């Protein structure tokens, strides 16, 4: 008897608890970087679901049933836009979501994507990696603030306070990046990298990103890859290289010895690392990348 009563009590409690949690505004953000910005604006008032988590590739994501459920129950769906989440429309249709879909990049000065895009689907020639400039991230934050306020008018004051505090942090970050880049002599502000996500960073802060030529970065480095990289470093006098597939520290050292260039560490461009990693938040990610550039480019 006692156990049955306990079970009933437990069932009642279970039925009640979610209703309690419903008081938080259910919000969906599409990927980890955006999720971090939304979290900073929404604070305690929202319960956030991030579809593509840390270290996940939002380009090649495929939705799960639980994602569809979250999207269906959301009161606001925040996206990057600019064709970054090509899979999202299908997900919204399939889950029958009613919430407004807000593109956080609305109002951003859009750049054209570099030719020969490698992600295998069309971005309509728009480069979606706008968050790599802090100025743009500030636009994201105001868009997020407005979207949350529209979905939850009662929380407007709190969202505005949160956004204001976070925008100040972003201003400080922007200054920090400009100071650090200014400390690098102008001739040395260029790196070879296979990441194609830094066009906005380049436009905002004046560090040049050169794509490695004739190098396959998808597989283990071959003798030709290493030779091409060495040739390009020498020809263009590039002080630093960031390549995903050259991770063997012995090979990194060999290239460095042979060219005098530095081979930099991991960059985070499309996703955050997990919380323990070096790029757990947007601000940490930008700082981490900046530190990598500064270390590799300072003579």
């Amino acid at each position, binding site marked *: 008897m006692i156990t049955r009563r306990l079970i009933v009590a437990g069932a009642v409690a279970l039925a009640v608890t979610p209703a309690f949690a419903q008081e938080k505004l259910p919000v969906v953000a599409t990927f980890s970087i955006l999720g971090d910005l939304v979290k900073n604006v929404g604070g305690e008032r929202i319960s956030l679901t991030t579809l593509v988590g840390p270290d996940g590739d939002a380009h090649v994501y495929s939705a799960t049933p639980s994602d569809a459920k979250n999207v269906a129950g959301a009161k606001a769906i925040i996206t990057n836009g600019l064709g970054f989440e090509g899979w999202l429309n299908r997900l919204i249709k399939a889950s029958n979501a009613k919430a407004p879909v807000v593109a956080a990049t609305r109002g951003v000065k859009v750049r054209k994507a570099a030719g020969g895009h490698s992600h295998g689907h069309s971005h309509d020639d728009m480069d979606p990696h706008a968050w790599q400039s802090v100025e743009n991230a500030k636009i994201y934050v105001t868009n997020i603030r407005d979207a949350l306020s529209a979905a939850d008018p009662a929380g407007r004051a709190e969202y505005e306070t949160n956004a204001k505090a976070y925008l100040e942090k972003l201003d400080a970050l922007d200054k920090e990046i400009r100071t650090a880049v200014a400390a690098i002599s102008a001739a040395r502000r260029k790196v070879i990298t296979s990441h194609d996500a830094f066009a906005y960073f380049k436009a905002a802060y004046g560090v040049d990103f050169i794509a490695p030529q004739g190098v396959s970065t998808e597989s283990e480095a071959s*003798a030709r890859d*290493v*030779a091409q990289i060495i040739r390009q470093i020498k020809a263009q006098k590039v002080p630093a290289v960031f390549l995903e597939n050259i991770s*063997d520290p*012995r090979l990194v050292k*060999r290239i460095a010895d*042979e060219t005098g260039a530095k081979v930099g560490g991991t960059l985070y461009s499309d996703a955050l690392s997990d919380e323990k990693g070096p790029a757990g938040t947007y601000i940490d990610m930008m700082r981490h990348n900046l530190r990598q550039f500064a270390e590799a480019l300072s003579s």
Partner: protein
Amino acid sequence: MLYDLLIAPFVEFEFMRRALVGMLALSFGAAPIGVFLMLRRMSLTGDAMAHAILPGAALGFLVAGFDLFAMTLGGIAAGFAVAIGAGVVARATELKEDASLAAFYLVSLALGVLIVSMRGSNIDLLHVLFGSVLALDDATLVLIASFATVTLFVLAVAWRPLVLECVDPGFLRSVSRAGAPAHIAFLALVVLNLVGGFHALGTLLSVGIMMLPAIAARFWATDLTRMIVISVVVAFVSGYGGLLVSYHFAAPSGPAIILVAGAIYIVSLVFGPVGGLRRRFAPGRHLEA
């Protein structure tokens, strides 16, 4: 044209020259050992020992990362442990030596993969398994070259007992007590060369540069000395050819080297004058009795 194809890559890039020197040193050490392994019907023993090196090298990696000294020491220790362990088990129990070697190396392989994964990523594991012939620094080159030197020296000193053990171990035992020490020295050389090769080609492929040239040489000579010379040449040509293939066709360098050695083996198998397929099935007129 020919210059661009065959020589220019080595003139232009230091890492190519270093890789070539590393392969030259490896050829001098590993190929003769491979010939002895083959003649003693221990071809698969080399394979088993190569896997046995992995957990030792992995332990070194666990302690110190990609540190030459730690990984070499760990590899040598593990190689000896397995060689001696398999021998002891074979003598003390009913189990034959090949069975105990198989048991030891399977355990070692699994252990090695586990240890590397504890510290590094899958990528690190690939680097340990397949080496980095394109990234040989001074210390590694000196290490490989000194292993080759030691190998040639020991082979010169222990030549007679080693050869006798290949052809008639019973006779050797009846006339001399040099058999056991020669055997142990030989096993030590196998381990040493596998560890040297491991730095360039990784644990999985280092045995390839040891065995494939030796087996290919078998089709070209009956005389032991000539066989060894041919195996060294084949090993070096494989290294040179493999590096060129990797350079011109953007192929991963370690597998390219071993595949060139494999191609030479197949050509030898078909055209080799000593027991090759063509000789056997389409003998030339001059061979008729």
